[in-house]
């Protein structure tokens, strides 16, 4: 894999989608060109500024100009604290510090396998690049996409343009099927027959745990993109560990061996 680069990138645009969500477009072609689906970047507003540590974000889209040349990448961010607030408030023309691409990407299936992506809220982030890659290899792809309410669901047309079948759920029933995203997934798993299916999941830990359980029950492989706290993103600090079951339980660094893991390798009981 190519080596990560650290850039002081110009912000090209900031699309505020709601009071919480935004998509930040940043001019970091050197990172974007190397990024594979599921990889992430470590971000902060500026060096020397509080908070001290960078934060990890999945690369959402690879941005291209009219001629198709890569110009940068975007982040889909949800405000939960200091850095996501900085990202929400950032203005075009300002700069942002961005290091990447980092981590082990999704393993992208090819036909005849079908791809089922299961996203909870901001867990949609790694799936735009994955959908592109799947589309390029002609994989039949479905996105199960759930949130608390319609306020948590964004950019559905982006996926539809890539030929993705989209199944929406909201817990409050304001959009798509009422309930959790695991409900339609469970139904379809039960009726999928002998088609080969690779399940991909990203979202809150309890959701991923549930998806991994459903996939295992239906004997389907599943890749999850986990979101542990990360201090460095480079393997330096050992903060991001996930307990893995193979070869006797042991902690591995999610910034190097992950963030994508096969669902059956993860010790779900240890994930908080």
């Amino acid at each position, binding site marked *: 894999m190519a080596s990560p680069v*650290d850039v002081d990138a110009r912000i090209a645009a900031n699309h505020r989608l709601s009071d919480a969500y935004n998509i930040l477009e940043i001019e970091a072609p050197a990172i974007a060109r190397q990024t594979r689906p599921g990889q992430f970047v470590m971000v902060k507003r500026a060096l*020397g500024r509080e908070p*001290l540590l960078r934060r990890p974000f999945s690369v959402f889209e690879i941005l291209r100009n009219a001629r198709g040349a890569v110009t940068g990448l975007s982040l889909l961010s949800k405000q939960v604290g200091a850095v996501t607030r900085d990202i929400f408030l950032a203005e075009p023309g300002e700069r942002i510090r961005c290091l990447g691409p980092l981590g082990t990407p999704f393993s992208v299936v090819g036909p005849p396998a079908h791809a089922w992506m299961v996203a909870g809220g901001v867990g949609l982030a790694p799936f735009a690049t994955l959908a592109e890659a799947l589309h390029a290899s002609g994989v039949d792809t479905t996105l199960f996409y759930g949130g608390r309410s319609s306020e948590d669901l964004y950019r559905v047309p982006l996926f539809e343009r890539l030929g993705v079948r989209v199944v929406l759920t909201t817990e409050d029933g304001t959009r798509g099927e009422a309930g959790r995203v695991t409900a339609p997934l469970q139904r379809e798993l039960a009726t999928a027959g002998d088609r080969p299916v690779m399940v991909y999941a990203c979202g809150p830990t309890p959701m991923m745990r549930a998806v991994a359980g459903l996939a295992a029950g239906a004997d389907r492989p599943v890749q999850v993109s986990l979101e*542990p*706290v990360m201090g*460095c993103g480079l393997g330096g*600090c*050992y*903060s991001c560990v*996930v307990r893995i079951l193979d070869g006797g339980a042991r902690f591995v660094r999610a910034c190097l061996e992950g963030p994508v893991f096969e669902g059956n390798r993860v010790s779900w009981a240890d994930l908080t």
Partner: protein
Amino acid sequence: MGRPDLSVDIAGLRLANPLIAASGCFGYGVEYADLVDLAALGAVAVKGLFLEAREGHAPPRIVETPSGMLNAIGLQGIGVRTFVAEKLPELKARRAVVIVNICGSTVEEYAEVARILSDADGVAAIEINISCPNIDEGGHTFGCSLTGVHDVVRAVRAATTLPIFPKLTPNVTDVAAIAVAAEEAGADAVSLVNTFLAMAIDVETRRPRLSNVVGGLSGPAIRPIAVRMVYECRAAVRIPIIGMGGIASARDVLEFLIAGADAVQVGTANFEDPGIWPKLLAGVTDYLERHGHAAVGEVVGTVDLSARETAWISS
């Protein structure tokens, strides 16, 4: 005048410059090989190693605090033999000067780990971690008492001819006395400071924010305390001092050197900016040139306590 000489001599170990990657903040060094020119660092202090592999604490292992962070990694590690077999050759190939940070649950374990490293090829020095605040067997108990420090350093001294640098804890009443105990027991230099025992609580859940309840505070927040400790130790021992705690700029490097450190380590700041090393080096070089120094050693321990006098400055 040519470029200033940045090299430093730590108890016979010559480093190209005084910048060392701090233990536990740079993995085993190899993780950074693509991003940082390891040969351009003064040295790399690798993650603390016990005799055997260790699992470490459950996550969450870090939490950020004002101008700092807490960590309770719990010394997860691959064990000294695996390190020698799997990591040391690559570090050697990259021409890194390797300082190995060692741990032990007993005095004997420290000595055994030191012996194994003495027989290995490519270890420049041993840093003795008697100061990890996060685990019961992390040496913190040794590091807090004069006899504990003495016993561990003595035993490691007997086990190896490599330079040995006990790493001191700041969680003590009199760090200079601890440094003296280390010197008397045969230390070639002392490293200080390790992290400050600290705690953060999530007030909504009332749970500690670290699974281990307490952890070690590092980063710029602790720098003024660390500088004071280096200054105190400089007055108390003759052996070199490797100073650290919150260094995030060339100015900070110089503050430690002036306070009395012969070299410094940088930990937390490397997380924020893995590209910090050449910037620190350039800043130190610029300072030496501006102040007319031929060698970095000339600024070590140069706190000016003379009376103040001010020049006329218009505005």
